[in-house]
């Protein structure tokens, strides 16, 4: 077995040194009859070549995004990631290190965490950011709990533009602690009366922009009303590239900002691993979940970085911790921060511009197709169209033609009477040919 260095002779010598007759003597605390005597019913060890064949065959059955005209978004986005990123994150010292509990030999990890926190704070326009959450959805649920700790209230209002999966994750976690959640109905045209929901009993309002249907939302009036009632505004985004083009939530007085960072540096991966971005106003830092990296000095006065404010965390505070999170998204953070460093604000702004330009082109093209109506007044790189047929059928028919057209709203929200809606994303990877192919295929199908 290529991964196991001990030889049979080694094992015998080591057992003799320990002073036991066989290895099972070391398992003597396993209750009688519970120690397995036979191998489990699974295949025997395989060489690299064989494993590659097996997994290669499974992989080949899937349609890779890069192999077709691809317009699927709604919370995860196909972007180009520079080759440098994947090379660097596979360096042994990054890939095979642990959470930086021994800072003297983990300054590499700690410094990129500090840089990442600074980047996220700048992008969102917030004062502080943590070292990541699992993804945007779990980060949103944690943000709600954080707001409850800050306000000492237990009622969250969720916008109907919040990604339905995010809303479900919030509802699941909140339900366990009997916290109240008011989830507004799906809001395709961004017309909901969220201000009317805010009163003195509300802990937080959760609003996504661009929302799941692609609409850009004005957060400022919501923040104002929330603050007037002692509540917090939690701003959510699923497409971090949008922050290169739109007003950041921090400039609209959001109190906590949570987002999905997958678009920068990370592959689609069928949904994970991704990287949750989490930022807040500095006055709430001690109520934040997750790890924080801070600057300090060593015994010689040289600058260095450590994990800090850990008295918030589970390994110190146990059942009084701000979260149970331990392992987070380390290597996805690294991919994010490298890609963001390569982009810089100049590159990010340009990337966002291309995304928006491509989406505008597609919206204009689709608006000219019979049986298609673009519903959004404003959008970034994603919008919702109303089709003359159920969107799931259309998406399936287009998939058969080798085009992945978007996400039917019924996939996210079944049974809500929104079966004719399709969410369509368009990023820098899409070409004019891709868009022409989508338009032509739609005309055939509709």
């Amino acid at each position, binding site marked *: 077995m290529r991964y*196991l*260095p001990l030889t049979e002779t080694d*094992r015998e010598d*080591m057992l003799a040194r320990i*002073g036991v007759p066989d290895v099972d003597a070391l398992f003597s605390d396993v209750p009688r009859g519970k120690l397995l005597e036979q*191998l489990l*019913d*699974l*295949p025997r*060890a*395989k060489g690299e070549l064989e494993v*590659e064949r097996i*997994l290669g065959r499974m992989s080949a*059955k*899937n*349609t890779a*995004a890069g192999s077709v005209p691809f317009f*699927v978004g709604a*919370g995860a986005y196909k972007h180009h990631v520079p080759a440098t990123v994947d090379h660097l994150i596979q360096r042994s*010292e*990054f*890939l*095979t*290190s*642990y959470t930086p509990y021994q800072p003297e030999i983990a300054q590499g990890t700690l410094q990129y965490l500090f840089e990442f*926190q600074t980047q996220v704070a700048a992008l969102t326009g917030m004062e502080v950011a943590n070292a990541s959450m699992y993804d945007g959805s779990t980060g949103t649920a944690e943000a709600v709990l954080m707001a409850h700790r800050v306000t000492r209230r237990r009622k969250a209002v969720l916008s109907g533009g919040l990604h339905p*999966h995010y809303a479900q*994750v919030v509802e699941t976690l909140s339900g*366990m*602690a009997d916290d109240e959640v008011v989830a507004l109905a799906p809001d395709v045209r961004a017309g909901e009366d969220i201000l009317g929901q805010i009163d003195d009993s509300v802990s937080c309002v959760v609003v996504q922009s661009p929302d799941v249907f692609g609409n850009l939302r*004005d957060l400022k009036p919501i923040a104002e009303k929330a603050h007037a009632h002692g509540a917090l505004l939690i701003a959510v985004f699923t497409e971090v590239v949008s922050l290169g083009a*739109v007003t950041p939530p921090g400039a609209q007085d959001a109190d906590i900002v949570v987002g999905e960072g997958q678009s920068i540096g990370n*592959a689609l991966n069928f*949904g*994970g*691993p991704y*990287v949750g971005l989490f930022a807040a106003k500095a006055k709430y830092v001690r109520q934040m979940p997750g790890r924080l990296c801070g600057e300090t*000095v060593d015994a010689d006065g040289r600058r260095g970085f450590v994990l800090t404010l*850990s008295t918030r965390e*589970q*390994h110190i*505070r*146990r*059942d009084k911790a701000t*979260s*149970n999170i*331990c*392992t*987070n998204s*380390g*290597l*996805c953070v690294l991919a994010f921060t490298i890609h963001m*460093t*390569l982009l*810089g*604000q100049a*590159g*990010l702004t340009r990337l966002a511009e291309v995304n*928006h330009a491509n989406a505008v082109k597609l919206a204009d093209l689709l608006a000219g197709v019979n049986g298609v109506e673009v519903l959004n007044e404003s959008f970034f790189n994603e919008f919702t169209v109303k089709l003359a047929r159920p969107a799931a059928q259309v998406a399936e028919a287009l998939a058969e033609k080798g085009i992945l057209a978007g996400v039917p709203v019924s996939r996210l929200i079944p049974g809500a009477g929104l079966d004719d809606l399709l969410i369509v994303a368009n990023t*820098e990877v899409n070409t004019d040919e891709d868009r022409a192919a989508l338009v032509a295929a739609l005309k055939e199908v509709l």
Partner: protein
Amino acid sequence: MLNRQGRPTQAGEGESQHHETFTGNRALEQIEPLIFEIGHHETTGVDIEKPAPFASRLGKHARQGEIGLPGLSEPEAMRHYVRLSQKNYGIDTGLFPLGSCTMKHNARLNEKMARLPGFADVHPLQPVSTVPGALELMLELARYLMTLTGMPAVALSPKAGAHGEACGMMAIKAAIAARGEGATRNVVLVPESAHGTNPATAALVGFSVKPVPARPDGTVAVEDVRALLGPEVAAIMLTNPNTCGIFEPQIVEIAAAMHAAGAYFYCDGANFNAIVGKARPGDLGVDAMHINLHKTFSTPHGGGGPGAGPVVLSERLAPFAPVPFIHVEKGKSRLVEHKADAPAGNDPFGRMTAFHGQMGMYVRALAYMLSHGADGMKQASEDAVLNANYIRAGLADLMSLPFPDHPSMHEALFDDDWLKGTGVSTLDFAKAMIDEGYHPMTVYFPLVVHGAMLIEPTESESKASLDLFIATLRDLAMAARGNDKSRFTSAPHHAPIRRLDETRAARQPVLKWERPAPVQQAAE
């Protein structure tokens, strides 16, 4: 005319001594500023063509003003991150005996497989008909996990160990609510030796926590558990093998006591790597157990993630598993993404995360399982246990064992009794290990042991590697006892940086880079 004098080939003259350098660098060890100190706002390492003019649809939402982020060109970025990497210790650098964390070899085959386009480049919401291979991979991973644990169901979606704990405890909460006892059964028993995530998870899910005292021999006794049982007790969260590295001898009796009292047994599976192929949690009475794919099945730790925390569930809890999951009936598999689509008899408690969980980690873990096979996984567990006990045998005469009466499983636990009177603390000892080229063991955990040192070598170490490690620790132990205090109390001496002031970091938190205030011109 050729110069006849060649390059000098002798070693230079002079004593080896500490020389200051102009740059502050020390050869391969380079000081690396922050990107904010070396980058510029106009620089970018990505070439993207400017789009043709178009009419914006951003409305009034267009960003005003600068973001305030520097960029680096590609060569600058490459150098920045390579230099940072050189300040890190990884498994590939050397022995990384971090107890409870399981730092085993990370095979690069697994990285390669996770990057196949059919896994890495598929979207979680593209039509299900276009991802049959992804579902097949998830089902195959599930089959392996269920077989290895002897459990009938598994929820794959949790994102890491603590998230898996939350999933398991939510399933327990849902099962209790379904029995109509939701209002009354709200206490969870957690041993004092538990990982901090256990009480934190119980609290997160809305339970209150009652500690179970630790026995002097490092185990949990069934009498102590029984004494705490009552109609208000929902579950126990017990790690097995436990955080002292001991297989809980009374685990079957504890499980039976919980079940007899109408409660559930949550097993923290962080240490499952010790018993894969040797014992099955399903045979021990476990109702739910998370599996850290990044520990037991070697998906890389990546400097703190990403992990993956699938949870195996008993028959009693399986119906409450969260969406999404794959339902197989009559050989046909179906992805269930909504409560309303769940097959009859199922009552999912909700959703843990957007999408399907950590696919990238599933691929790596399955590649590990396929490579090892049933035989290799059993051998890996045995070797991990053998290696830990070999280290224990090699150090037991110099360092003190808090629990000598039980064999260790995959990790050997020492306390600091043997350091009494030396003026050297566990932390000092750990820092001196850094100078010797080792990553320290886990220190000060579990909390039930004073000055704990938890050593987990894993199966990835050769005997020669273990022998050198033992010899090194013996040398350090002798030095600590021999009054060579300076080797410890100011260690590390050879790391890129010396001990850091963590108190200052917490008292005056600096959590991001701020542009330094412009230097005032000196008044004339």
